[in-house]
């Protein structure tokens, strides 16, 4: 007969969600302690996709290590590459040509939109609605095609290199991006009709998984998760890099801190990204796309840190150099890891369905948490 295994002394059920589970979007492993349907404890177990990226980087040169970082947060690989390139440029004081800066920012923002699109579909799928996934992919596919034309890749771009970008833009780039913006604007209302306005969806999201401003700060949350709780943390505004300081865009903030706020922040962020791309796309200056750099890069002795805003939050790259061609130590501060740590606080006392919904709004990418 059925045995009494996997229960605590109080008779609570211990259940493994993952490492293979449809809701964890990867190999995240959560150990839940449940009393009936109510969650008492959430314990993330990490390490299933640990590839020692930081250790690998120690034996790679400053030109090579960027390629590995595409595999961290694979949904914003452009931005990861960007962060690494920026750190190396900062250390070596390389002046990046204007054209390259424009290209980088446009690519970053397109990546952000693509990443949020995928999140939107996947989160709706967590809530049991399958259709939005396909609608999100329709637009995301267009961005991926644009990327493919210029970078030759669709997911792990490896496009940004120290000193600029690897190759010049594809001749069709501006035309394609403009037609994407047109498409996106015409379809955006569909998102609200299909998901945002749905009464079931709103009931599932509002007031669920609340993260207060203080908690968001103390857990080290960043990106849309923290901004939904009212924390001013957009690196593009606080510590502008590249040409972000000259651009007009709003830092999307919300105060509710619940799942719905996180949802709305991401939706609005997509529109802000569109705004940024619109400002730049017609004015990409002519000129070099890459600064003249030596074939072998050598960083001066010292410690260098650069942070950027990825689609998920603040990504920090910390390089310790001893003056050689490879870093002595590299540390990545990934947004997903800190955001995941707030999960237990958010969902304690809620139902299993809420765990899945709240986890969906955290927008976790597991290879970003486990590097």
């Amino acid at each position, binding site marked *: 007969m059925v045995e009494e295994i996997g229960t605590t002394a109080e008779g609570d059920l211990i259940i493994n969600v993952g490492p293979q589970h449809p809701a964890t979007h990867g190999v995240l492993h959560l150990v839940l302690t449940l009393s009936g*349907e109510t969650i008492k404890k959430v314990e993330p177990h990490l390490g299933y996709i640990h590839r020692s990226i930081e250790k690998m980087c120690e034996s790679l040169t400053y030109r090579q290590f960027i390629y590995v970082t595409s595999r961290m947060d694979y949904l914003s690989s452009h931005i990861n590459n960007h962060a690494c390139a920026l750190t190396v440029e900062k250390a070596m004081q390389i002046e990046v040509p204007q054209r390259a800066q424009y290209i980088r920012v446009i690519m970053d923002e397109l990546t952000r939109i693509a990443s949020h699109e995928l999140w939107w579909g996947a989160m709706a799928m967590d809530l049991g609605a399958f259709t939005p996934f396909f609608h999100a992919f329709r637009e995301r596919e267009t961005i991926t095609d644009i990327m493919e034309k210029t970078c030759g890749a669709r997911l792990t771009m490896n496009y940004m290199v120290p000193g600029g970008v690897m190759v010049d833009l594809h001749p069709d780039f501006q035309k394609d991006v403009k037609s994407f913006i047109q498409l996106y604007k015409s379809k955006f209302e569909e998102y609200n009709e299909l998901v945002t306005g749905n009464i*079931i969806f709103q*009931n599932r999201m509002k007031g669920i998984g609340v993260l207060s401003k203080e908690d968001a700060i103390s857990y080290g949350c960043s990106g849309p998760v923290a901004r939904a709780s009212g924390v001013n943390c957009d690196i593009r505004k606080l510590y502008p890099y590249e040409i972000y300081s000259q651009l007009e865009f709003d830092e999307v903030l919300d105060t509710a801190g619940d799942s719905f706020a996180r949802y709305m922040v991401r939706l609005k962020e997509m529109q802000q990204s569109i705004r940024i791309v619109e400002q730049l796309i017609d004015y990409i200056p002519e000129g070099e796309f890459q600064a003249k750099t030596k074939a072998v890069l050598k960083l001066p002795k010292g410690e260098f840190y650069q942070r950027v805003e990825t689609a998920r939050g603040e990504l920090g790259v910390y390089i310790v150099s001893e003056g050689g061609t490879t870093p002595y130590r590299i540390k990545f501060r990934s947004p997903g890891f800190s955001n995941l740590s707030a999960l237990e606080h958010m969902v304690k006392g809620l139902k299993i369905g809420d765990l899945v919904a709240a986890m969906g709004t955290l927008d976790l990418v597991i290879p970003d948490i486990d590097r």
Partner: protein
Amino acid sequence: MFSLEGITNMIHEWLNNHFNATIALLTEFVLVGVAAIALFAVLGLVLVWMERKVAAVMQIRLGPNRVGPKGIFQTTADTLKLIMKEGLTPDGADKFLFNLAPYIVMIVAMLILAPIAFAKNFQIWDINIGVLYLSAVSSLSVIGILMAGWASNNKYSLLGAMRSGAQIVSYELSAGLSVISIVIMTGSLSINDIILSQQDGWWIFKGHIPAIISFVIFMIAVTAETNRAPFDLAEAESELTAGFHTEYSGMKFALFFLAEYINIFIVCAIGATLFFGGWMPLHVGHWQSFNHVMDYIPSSVWFFGKTIGLIFLIMWFRWTFPRLRIDQLLNLEWKYLLPISMLNLILMTIVAIMGWHF
């Protein structure tokens, strides 16, 4: 004119002319059984294909299109694959109950088929308490689901079965109450009488607002009873992987899967019978010539047309709505649907007593 009634009468006469009455009756039993099983298989295949095509249209893709024209043999191929797969029984499972559960779910689905009228005079069993029989037998399917969830010895299955138990037991109330409101109008529990009472118009048109309210409640309740999205908490793919049938594989899984679609067909058939007149063509009061033209469409076409329309509605729900949470699900039933359907029942009774319906 083509009618199913003619075929059954012909077979009946032929059997009675060539054999004695007992053998003829036994042969008819066997024929009905075979026909029911064949209908099951065909319905299962067609509805799964239909669901995949409906989903594809909603999700801007093509859906199955490789096996046969428009992929109509895709589900046949899938079923063949499932039959050939090994039916695993987990080590810790209660083997007897584990293997029994899918058959219980399936048998219950087959039993409900008995009083449904597929066409004019084409009904397996015109029992005089047809509606009561339907609601009584349909509540048995929860036993199969609970059995599957408990016997699997899997926590996901157990949670799914728990949810399903709470859900089906609650939603049966409003489904039952909305069915009763039509019974009040008709004054009979027999399916045949209910259909015949809609000779001059379907109840959804004749019964004023109360009929429309009970139809809406009926559709919500049966969607929940068949464990379909947005009430698919028993399966809840993103939460419980597959809910109560997580541990099932091969044909045992296929039986659950098939039973789901048969149940959809049955509840939609009941809905069509109660609110849209079953096989009764669209008749409007005293418009003799219009009614006469409508009668030319065979009654089986009317029945299947209405049923498939309602099935499409339920599929439409599934592919557009997100899932409810368990407490919201029970709130919806106990705090909203049940009080509304009770009030509606009173309203319906008043309408019936005063004779306000058409």
